[in-house]
């Protein structure tokens, strides 16, 4: 763990993607097979593979109880320290540094601890185990041991980069490693297979999220070179998700790649009897009286922690399928869209997106207006003969949204409102993405409901990085994604992005998206060219 921690710090200390990958690859080369399997898992931010049903169940309260025990700091001091640092692993490492025996922690030993923590159900025993760890090992080892538990290393290393490092260390094709990890959800096995040239033996597994195929925006329908190459489907205003079914077991994963099975019991029930193994790509929608409910109503359902029968009656949800990734246990990514569509139609699903082969621009326009009239976002155009490009935002899927675009942005700062909104952080500054950086592009004051503002205020307070003006303004961890609409765009030195939006307003809170999914500066430039 000490070596891994040292590598992780080097990874954090460079913003160059290639350098990060090279640091990891060089490290992986030095490890034997067992340590290689452990290291790639931990560097991906998890003690277990994605397909492993075991869960560690060590929460913040447990970590904190152990920390309090070994450091003897009072709760107020601990809370302040955590607030200033913003990461459990790092806070714990700093506070344990003066008291630990600072022995090195091997990856094998770390794995034993993860096993022990996972096996015991008693919180008391978990706390004792953590307390022992916090008093025994070096601060860097403790830091990354805890980060592996909390699931985010915060060193700017995405799993995609770990895949590339695995490929580089083993001298294999990065795409083959990525594909193997995407289908199996087990980076540890993939790393070993890559080393021993057995990637082709890695089989597909269900019950871990596969990468979604994404659509590029199409701003103007007339930009479509040859309309006859495309199919059109409505673009729905729901949550993009993946449904996995096998042997009566059903699981749902969203775009943020989180599992959301428990939030939508009626969907699970509806698919329990479907013959599997099947993986479907589609949208969770709230559907009532024959049409999709507006997103803000649907969002009330998402916000519920506990799903009761009353919730289900008020805001019922369905899974509307539009693609298939696995059929009877076979991956069908590499089958053309027509073939996948045929498989999909054979499943006799109650909710299936309507697909229309288009012939000319006028028809696309009509379909777009019809989709809007049905309360949907617009259209998705899918290229005839195209394959399912898992994890790509290629040119084979195009999304047609509002005439003037919206942007998905991330909130970087929040400010107290005035009057009725004096106690909440209602005014937000938001940014687009440029590589690893977030560049501010505007500020918005309206568009969210009071309830959403209340929830967001909690998130912003928890994620505050820095406070100004007596706490009225807070820089926040970039994590909340909003969709903003605007009427125009101009160049402006006021924001770091170099652009400003005209009349920006919040359309909605995109809980289904992560900061990695937001629009980029390149996209902003592209839109600006069109104004």
């Amino acid at each position, binding site marked *: 763990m000490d070596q891994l921690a040292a590598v992780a710090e080097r990874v954090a200390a460079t913003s160059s993607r290639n350098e990060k990958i090279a640091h990891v690859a060089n490290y992986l080369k030095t490890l034997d097979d067992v340590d290689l399997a452990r290291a790639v898992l931990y560097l991906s931010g998890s003690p277990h593979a994605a397909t492993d049903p075991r869960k560690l169940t060590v929460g913040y309260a447990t970590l904190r109880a152990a920390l309090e025990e070994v450091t003897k700091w*009072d709760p107020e001091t601990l809370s*302040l320290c955590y607030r200033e640092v913003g990461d459990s692993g790092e806070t714990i490492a700093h506070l344990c540094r003066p008291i630990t025996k600072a022995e090195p922690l091997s990856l094998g030993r770390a794995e034993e601890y993860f096993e022990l923590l996972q096996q015991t159900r008693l919180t008391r025993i978990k706390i004792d185990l953590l307390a022992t760890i916090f008093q025994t090992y070096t601060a860097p080892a403790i830091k990354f041991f805890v980060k592996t538990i909390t699931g985010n290393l915060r060193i700017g290393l995405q799993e995609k980069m770990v895949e590339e490092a695995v490929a580089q260390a083993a001298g294999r094709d990065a795409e083959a490693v990525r594909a193997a990890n995407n289908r199996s959800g087990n980076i540890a096995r993939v790393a070993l297979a890559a080393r021993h040239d057995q990637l082709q033996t890695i089989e597909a597994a269900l019950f871990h999220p596969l990468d979604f195929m994404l659509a590029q925006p199409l701003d103007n329908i007339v930009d479509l070179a040859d309309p006859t190459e495309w199919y059109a489907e409505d673009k729905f205003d729901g949550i993009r998700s993946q449904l996995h079914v096998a042997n009566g077991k059903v699981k749902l994963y969203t775009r943020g790649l989180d599992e959301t099975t428990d939030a939508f019991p009626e969907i699970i029930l509806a698919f329990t009897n479907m013959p599997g193994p099947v993986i479907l790509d589609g949208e969770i929608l709230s559907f009532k009286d024959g049409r999709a409910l507006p997103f803000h109503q649907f969002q009330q359902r998402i916000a519920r922690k506990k799903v009761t029968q009353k919730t289900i009656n008020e805001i019922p949800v369905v899974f509307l399928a539009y693609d298939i990734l696995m059929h009877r246990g076979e991956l069908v990514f590499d089958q053309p869209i027509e073939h996948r569509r045929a498989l999909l139609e054979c499943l006799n699903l109650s909710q299936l997106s309507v697909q229309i082969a288009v012939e000319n621009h006028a028809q696309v326009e009509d379909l777009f207006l019809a989709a809007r009239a049905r309360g949907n976002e617009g259209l998705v155009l899918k290229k005839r003969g195209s394959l399912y490009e898992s994890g790509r935002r290629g040119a084979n899927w195009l999304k047609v949204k509002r005439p003037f675009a919206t942007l998905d942005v991330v909130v970087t700062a929040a400010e107290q409102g005035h009057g009725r909104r004096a106690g909440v952080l209602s005014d937000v500054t938001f940014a687009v993405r440029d590589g690893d950086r977030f560049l501010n592009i505007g500020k918005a004051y309206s568009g969210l409901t009071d309830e959403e503002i209340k929830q967001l205020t909690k998130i912003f307070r928890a994620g505050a*990085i820095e406070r100004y003006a007596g706490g009225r303004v807070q820089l926040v961890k970039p994590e909340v994604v909003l969709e903003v609409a605007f009427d125009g765009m101009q160049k402006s030195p006021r924001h770091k992005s170099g652009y400003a939006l005209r009349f920006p307003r919040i359309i909605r809170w995109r809980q289904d998206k992560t900061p990695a999914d937001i629009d980029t500066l390149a996209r902003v430039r592209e839109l600006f060219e069109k104004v």
Partner: protein
Amino acid sequence: MRVEYTADGIYLPDIGLWLDPRLPVPAAWLSHAHSDHARGLHDSVIATPITAQIYRHRWPLPPDRSQQVFTLVPNQSMDWNGATLTARQAAHILGAAQLLVEYQGERLVYTGDIKRRTPICGWSTEPTPCDHLIIESTFGIPIYQFIEVHEAQARIANFARECLDKGITPVFQGYGLGRGQEIAHTLALHQIPCRIHGSIAGLIPYFEAQGYTFPQESENGAILLTPGLEEKLPIPPSKRKSALVSGWAALDNARARANADVLIPYSDHADFSELLTLIGESNPSQVDIVHGYAEPLARILRQRGLNARAALVATEVQI
């Protein structure tokens, strides 16, 4: 001895002396030359000779004004309205000093900004036992842990070397007075050429006068800037790397805040354990804490049985 904490600074009414006041006053002790401590034209100032010189450089005296300047070298004393004032070395920036005030049998020490570790440029702290201690707490909670001076110098030099070896420009962010010259001096010790921003370079003669060496100007060495200027460099981000040498660099989130790649947690302020050491060495019966984490640190001290309170004076935070 009475101590008043006001928005304008700390005031000792029994002897008519202000400590690092923010506005012009009749008489002021200037603990060191940072502009949030030594500012404005007071009628009389008391400071160490180095602090007085740099203060004059930054606050020149207009021809129509007069000012009485009293200088005290460390351990030199003077009488002041019935009290004895003694300057005591403070490790912070060049010339920084604590003030010991002895009045009617009571000893009060005002540390100014201070640390316990040895600085790269400047003298070490002289522990000064007292009854009443006024101390800062910029980094007064236990997450702040800094590195030793030799370790900081090694990291500064290694970072610069590694970058230059790869054909990348190393950029350092350092405050105009203190950190900037310490980094430059460290680079000189390791024969690493560098370009220095004017606001740092302008004060180098005061350091040279104390015997510190500085690197030769070179077009292809390291770059030394005050914080916030890096974006303006005509070097593409892929061709440069930036190191933050600061107490804030003790936390990983400084990377995003300061847009830095490499973090070197070296400060001219005390980290948490140094503060405890300093307070322990002074062994006061009353501790007043100013700046930074005043209330949290006071609470921690009270838990340990000390008579401590937060005495807040608004200040600017510097990187």
